[in-house]
């Protein structure tokens, strides 16, 4: 008995045995509520949510609104007017930036009228010539990060222009340039408030947890209902999606400011505003700027998904070409998105690490040399573009703007490649596909679907109890019970099966790769760089090569998931293994361990909690990607979320489905975090 209490694995073994017995005993035909929870009033929850939100939009707090164009007074609600105003402001900002880059009239219209535009031909914003933008990117890169960064930024811009993707790329950029500052500002403010007010932080914490584990699609649905469809809706859903990590990092950074610095600020006579803006936020600058970096990444990842609700740009084009199975085009677009993501990521990181130079007491032209250089190039390229359009009035002006049809394209090459691949590897790939689906995936799916609700809940509760006591048991059981009460238990099981399969494979690949790479400092650097780079790819992009190679099937979704989810597993393994304290390594060396002993006896045990956090990330990444995989076609929760996006009353359903996915993630997250915290305490590395 003593043995049993002491050894958790023994408890687990008993738990699993009981689970197995329960699963076999409960019969689908006669099991009733033990097998699947029957329809209850809980199934009405989506409708309740729907009605509540509808009420909020249509009937709550009715006010009279005067419409100046039609000269009538209408009834409207506060919520409607609020969302309308927000939409207007966001749309105006996007259009302003977009027209600065691409030219247009909408901004001018906003201040005048359509008649004014048709009367005055000159009343439009001219597009920036692409060489000017490329030079701008080059200069910004040089200014922030030196030669390498300037070449990366400049070359990426040139690639986008030359390959004829200028218009969608600038549309995406304008969208990102609006969403990022809004997210950053909101995140900073909410983070600062949470820092000042304990109560606010307590309310915010669970909301952030849920928000960060809701799949991207689930955000789109309420946004469509509240804000409609279009660029602004895309930007708003992006802001909602990208703000939580910014809040987190702001709060983290502020909390890390040493108490003495706070006291020094107070004793210097700062009032509370000065303390926040002059002392706290600047001191937490590093974490906050990492937050900005995160926001940029999230925005680009969301840029593709937001095209489902009408955001223009690369994401939309990508979606169209994937729908038409134009792999070559999709690949080029994917490269453009990745390039924008990588360039913005690197630029923002360089900005985070850049320090102001107060030493220099420079004259005006040296202090502003970058701005002046850009101004010069802008004038020069504009003149060239203008002159060229005079000289060749009918020809395409390559120095000004390259249209999609006139750009280079490697599309043909890729299409041929894909054809070649399909004809030559068809047998092999199909064989593999067939084998995996019939011998691995289908049996696994069957096994998961045969899990009775009662047995599953028992397993979950038991695991929670063993890992973190009664409190954990209650928390995780509540999460899973919520799903069991909805009509989508079977769908959730399919999601769980896909996630389990992907996570197991990802962890095996990721951990082995991590262990191997951590053996040499050089390989460590390389693998971390690879992880960094892959992590900046918007998740959607992973689907392109997979569809190209494996066609449309469950397996290709899973492969995309595995590729995507292996990144955190690898990264955390490498980090965990290389961060083992030097003193312990030395102690090991002096005890005369060989390489294998060092790995098994010193490094792995100490790195294990960190690796588990990596596995936690792997689970979250996998869930996100599985839901995105619904775009290719799966039959899990993601598919239903996609469906509710196009249904008139899908809002409630979409939100509840999103919560189901989030709760799976949160349950795993809770278990792993609790375990890792305990383990770190035991090891004394908390």
């Amino acid at each position, binding site marked *: 008995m003593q043995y049993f209490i002491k050894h958790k694995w023994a408890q687990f073994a008993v738990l699993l045995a009981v689970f197995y017995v329960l699963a076999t005993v409960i019969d689908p035909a006669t099991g009733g509520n033990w097998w699947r929870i029957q329809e209850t009033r809980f199934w009405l929850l989506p409708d309740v949510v729907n009605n509540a939100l509808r009420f909020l939009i249509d009937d709550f707090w009715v006010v009279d609104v005067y419409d100046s164009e039609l000269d009538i007074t209408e009834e409207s609600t506060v919520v409607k007017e609020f969302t309308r105003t927000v939409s207007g402001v966001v749309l105006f900002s996007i259009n302003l930036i977009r027209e600065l880059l691409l030219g247009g009239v909408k901004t001018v219209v906003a201040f005048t009228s359509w008649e004014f535009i048709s009367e005055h031909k000159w009343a439009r914003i001219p597009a920036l010539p692409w060489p000017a933008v490329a030079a701008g990117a080059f200069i910004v890169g040089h200014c922030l990060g030196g030669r390498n960064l300037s070449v990366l930024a400049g070359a990426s811009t040139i690639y986008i222009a030359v390959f004829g993707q200028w218009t969608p790329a600038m549309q995406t950029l304008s969208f990102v340039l609006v969403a990022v500052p809004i997210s950053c500002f909101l995140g900073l403010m909410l983070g600062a408030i949470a820092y000042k007010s304990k109560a606010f932080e307590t309310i915010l914490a669970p909301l952030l947890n849920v928000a960060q584990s809701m799949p991207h699609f689930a955000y789109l649905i309420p946004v469509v209902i509240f804000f409609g469809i279009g660029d602004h809706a895309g930007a708003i859903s992006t802001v909602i999606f990208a703000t939580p990590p910014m809040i987190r990092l702001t709060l983290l950074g502020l909390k890390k400011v040493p108490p003495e610095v706070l006291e020094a600020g107070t004793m*210097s*006579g700062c009032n509370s505003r000065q303390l926040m803006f002059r002392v706290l936020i*600047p001191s937490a600058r590093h974490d906050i700027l990492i937050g900005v970096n995160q926001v940029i990444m999230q925005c680009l990842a969301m840029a593709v998904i937001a095209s489902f609700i009408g955001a223009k740009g690369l994401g939309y084009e990508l979606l169209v070409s994937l729908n038409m199975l134009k792999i070559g085009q999709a690949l080029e677009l994917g490269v453009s998105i990745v390039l924008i993501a990588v360039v913005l990521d690197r630029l923002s990181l360089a900005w985070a690490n850049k320090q102001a130079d107060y030493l220099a007491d420079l004259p005006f032209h040296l202090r502003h040399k970058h701005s002046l250089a850009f101004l010069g190039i802008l004038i020069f390229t504009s003149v060239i573009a203008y002159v060229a359009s005079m000289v060749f009035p009918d020809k395409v002006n390559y120095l000004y703007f390259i249209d999609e049809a006139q750009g280079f394209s490697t599309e043909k090459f890729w299409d041929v490649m894909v054809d070649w691949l399909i004809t030559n590897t068809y047998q092999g790939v199909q064989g593999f596909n067939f084998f995996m689906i019939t011998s691995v995936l289908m049996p696994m799916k069957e096994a998961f679907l045969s899990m009775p609700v009662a047995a599953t809940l028992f397993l979950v509760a038991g695991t929670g109890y063993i890992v973190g006591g009664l409190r954990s048991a209650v928390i995780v059981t509540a999460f899973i019970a919520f799903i069991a009460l909805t009509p989508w238990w079977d769908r959730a099981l399919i999601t769980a099966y896909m996630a389990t399969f992907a996570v197991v494979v990802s962890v095996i690949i990721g951990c082995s790769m991590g262990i191997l790479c951590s053996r040499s400092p050089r390989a460590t650097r390389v693998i971390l760089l690879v992880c960094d780079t892959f992590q900046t790819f918007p998740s959607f992009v992973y689907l392109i090569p997979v569809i190209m190679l494996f066609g449309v099937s469950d397996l290709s979704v899973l492969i995309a998931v595995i590729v995507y989810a292996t990144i955190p597993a690898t990264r955390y393994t490498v980090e965990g293994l290389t961060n083992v304290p030097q003193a312990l390594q030395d102690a090991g060396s002096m005890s005369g361990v060989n390489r294998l002993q060092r790995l098994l006896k010193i490094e792995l045990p100490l790195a294990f909690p960190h690796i588990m956090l990596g596995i936690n990330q792997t689970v979250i990444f996998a869930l996100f990607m599985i839901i995105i995989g619904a775009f290719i076609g799966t039959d899990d929760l993601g598919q239903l979320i996609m469906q509710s996006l196009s249904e008139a009353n899908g809002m409630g359903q979409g939100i509840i489905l999103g919560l189901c996915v989030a709760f799976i993630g949160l349950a795993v997250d809770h278990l792993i975090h609790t375990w890792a915290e305990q383990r770190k305490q035991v090891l004394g590395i908390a």
Partner: protein
Amino acid sequence: MSTSTQPVIKCESVYKIFGENAARIIEQSGGKVETAALLEAGCVIGVNNASFEVHEGELLVVMGLSGSGKSTLLRCISRLIETTAGNIHIDGDDLLAMNDKELIDIRRNKMGMVFQNFALLPHKTVLENIALPLQVKGMSTSDSMDRALDMVNLVELAGRENYFPRQLSGGQQQRVGIARSLAVEPDIWFLDEPFSALDPLIRREMQDEFLRIQSALKKTILFVTHDFDEAIRLADRIAIMKDGVIEQIDTPANIILSPATEYVARFTREVPRERVLSCQTIMGKYDDSQDMSDLTVSQEAIIESVAKPILTQQKPVGVTDSEGEIVGVLNSKIMANVLFGDANSLPVNN
């Protein structure tokens, strides 16, 4: 120093008690602090009934080991934390009754503080760090920079104005901290273990630097340290704290010569007395019948500095006051006893 003038800092029965129940328990007991009851309720006592005064231009060192409540006491007096019970007056004004505006005002004009780990803002240069208290007061950039440059010169950091804190050594960083705390020309100067994070040699150098600055500026100082030698070296008076209680508060010489408690005595035992005590503390009675040596020493002189000449004299040496009058005698016997004798067998003359 005269006691007739108003003290700059005056603490009366100051208590700081940590714990959620502390306020409630004190309220229940009718405002009276009963430490036993508080301890029973799981409260932690930071400062226990501290009463003392600091006068203008005086340097009071609060000395205690970690956890003795010395930093807590300092934070009560700078009101970085709220005092649980008692009164604190700054220049006669009730500190604890001040609202936020008055508090900010007093900090902007009257108080300066130096911190153990320097607490410099990492994103600001030396000059900007020093100018911060001036700028939050609303001083113009050029004025504040001029003043900050003066401070840079005062702490001898000229040439490093535009360095960032991370580019400076610990000693240099603390010089910046000192300059920042003095930028607003405060009357009261708080120093919270300012040299504890420094290497011993640098610490010594910084103590000299501190004494140099203090001899020029004559601030009223509350200096917290855990280093008894440092306390002896710098203090006009020392308050020794243990478990939140001030065990003894007196001049360094008196503390060494007559430690009030066994706890205090444990610190004084190791102190080389000849380096701390002045001649007047050990001199014998003078009567004019004695056959005196030609040599005289000042009563202020530290024993160590005059030991050698006294020991070489056959006859007793006269000890003179500031007017040159002989007020006591020292002979080789007394000196030998001080230098080599038992700690408890010191003659005590005052």
